[in-house]
């Protein structure tokens, strides 16, 4: 990220939001709102004294609730730029009008409570949307006890816990501070499940294996169980990693876990979480008492996906992810020319696939730039100047906003770069002044006659 920021041809706008997109391929106008961070970026040196002096402690979103942060903070240690932001919802000054501790201690005089949202407009030729994903919240799956039992974690929570710079400094601990002796990792939480997401999230098998490896490394004598439907180790070197984990004494149980319970039926289950599952390889129901349960949660579309789709005129598939132009032949382009997609906003995928798709999207953009020209659709609509009465019916109907009203001639004009040739205008034109190329009224009527012979 740091090298991207320092690249002379890249302008990185963090803490900013796209508010509006207009125009068409080669000629987009993008309105971007830069939110106020209440810290002057030119003056701030990133020393962090404001963070230390701030008296307000809040749940750290980056640690998914396991750690704390201050009301003035940088979201995570490697954040670029290394400039803090003030959380307006929790800052005492914004809530009660007093405090200003950060301002007092800032040697660079960088704190600026008067900052306002700045709106800029940029002209761009192409757009790549890489808005990522949300992690599935397993709270509605009440059978697994997430939120009810303290030692049931999601994959992301465990990831933060196992991170050396995370809330526990990389120590794997239960809520009472002790080290777990038995850990169960439950696959497919929210994926491959008709009640939630039917698709496979693709990454969970591999991160579950990684978790097992980390647990084995940090707690050598731990019992590790994985309850899986199918192991999907599809990538380069992945199957080998699975084999290695089997040698590392991880117990693989083929069968999705049905329930996590704390009701003990046997003495060795007292005080433990019991994972109930069917082991389909031995054909038997099993009760496995463990100290910690990790739910390998699904990848799902971001909560604001419909707003983003509308903003960039993107279509979505039934599962909510952005729709590519063609699943095999054009996986990075979209039905809106000049707008490309990459990463998990297009569908669940792992890091190598994301990097490959992002590189492809960048290459597609570069090919448009180096050509200097844009090829447009052959099927567009054209207005017959002589017949157009200027009624403006077509202008409101056009889904691509390709039609404008030419005041000088009092007729409608179609922008061929924007027109996708849907022909709605041609069907609606009361004067019959619009011709949809390759789908003219005569052609379609001839086809109707043809199919009925």
């Amino acid at each position, binding site marked *: 990220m740091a090298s991207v920021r320092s690249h002379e041809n890249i302008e990185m706008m963090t803490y900013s939001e796209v508010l509006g997109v207009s125009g068409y391929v080669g000629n987009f106008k993008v309105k971007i709102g830069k939110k106020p961070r209440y810290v002057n970026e030119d003056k701030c040196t990133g020393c962090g004294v404001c963070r230390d002096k701030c008296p307000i402690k809040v749940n750290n979103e980056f640690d998914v609730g396991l750690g704390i942060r201050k009301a003035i903070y940088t979201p995570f240690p490697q954040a670029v730029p290394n400039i803090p932001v003030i959380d307006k919802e929790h800052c005492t000054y914004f809530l009660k009008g007093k405090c200003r501790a950060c301002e007092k201690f800032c040697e660079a005089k960088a704190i600026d409570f008067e900052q306002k949202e700045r709106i800029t407009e940029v002209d761009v030729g192409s757009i790549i949307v890489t808005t990522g994903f949300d992690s599935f919240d397993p709270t509605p799956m009440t059978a697994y006890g997430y939120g009810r039992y303290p030692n049931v974690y999601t994959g992301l929570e465990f990831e933060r816990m196992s991170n050396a710079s995370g809330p526990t400094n990389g120590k794997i601990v239960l809520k009472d501070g002790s080290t777990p002796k038995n850990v169960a990792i439950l696959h497919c939480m929210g994926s491959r499940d008709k009640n939630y997401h039917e698709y496979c999230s693709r990454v969970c098998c591999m991160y579950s294996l990684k978790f097992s490896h980390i647990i084995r490394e940090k707690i050598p004598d731990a019992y590790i169980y994985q309850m899986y439907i199918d192991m999907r180790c599809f990538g380069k070197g992945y199957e080998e990693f699975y084999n290695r984990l089997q040698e590392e004494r991880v117990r693989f149980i083929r069968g999705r876990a049905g329930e996590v319970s704390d009701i003990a039926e046997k003495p060795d289950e007292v005080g433990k979480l019991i994972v109930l599952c069917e082991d389909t390889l031995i054909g038997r129901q099993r009760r496995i008492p463990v100290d910690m349960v990790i739910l390998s949660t699904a990848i799902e579309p971001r909560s604001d996906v419909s707003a983003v789709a509308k903003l960039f005129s993107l279509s979505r598939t039934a599962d909510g992810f952005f729709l590519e132009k063609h699943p095999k032949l054009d996986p990075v382009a979209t039905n809106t020319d000049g707008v490309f997609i990459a990463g998990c906003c297009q569908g669940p995928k792992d890091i190598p696939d994301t990097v490959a798709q992002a590189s492809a999207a960048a290459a597609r953009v570069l090919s448009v730039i180096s050509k200097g020209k844009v090829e447009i659709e052959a099927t567009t609509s054209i207005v017959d100047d002589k017949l157009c009465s200027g009624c403006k019916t077509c202008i409101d109907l056009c889904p691509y906003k390709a039609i404008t009203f030419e005041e000088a001639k009092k007729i409608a004009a179609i922008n061929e770069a924007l027109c996708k040739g*849907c*022909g709605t205008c041609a069907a609606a034109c009361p004067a019959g002044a619009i011709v949809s190329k390759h789908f003219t*009224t005569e052609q*379609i*009527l001839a086809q*109707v*006659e043809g*199919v*009925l012979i």
Partner: protein
Amino acid sequence: MSFEPKIVGFLCNWCSYAGADLAGTSRKKYAPNVRVVRVMCSGRVDPTFVVKAFQSGADGVLVCG
């Protein structure tokens, strides 16, 4: 002989026509009563197309999109 209706289907290029195409590539069978006319969007379908279809002997018209 049982009645076999003739149905003219105006199918959108992006969804229903693609769906009919997919049925073909997936080797799925469907009744041959629907005779497909591809349009770039169901919005292209002018009411006169429907009238013309009935006039030319269609028993039903399907607009998909």
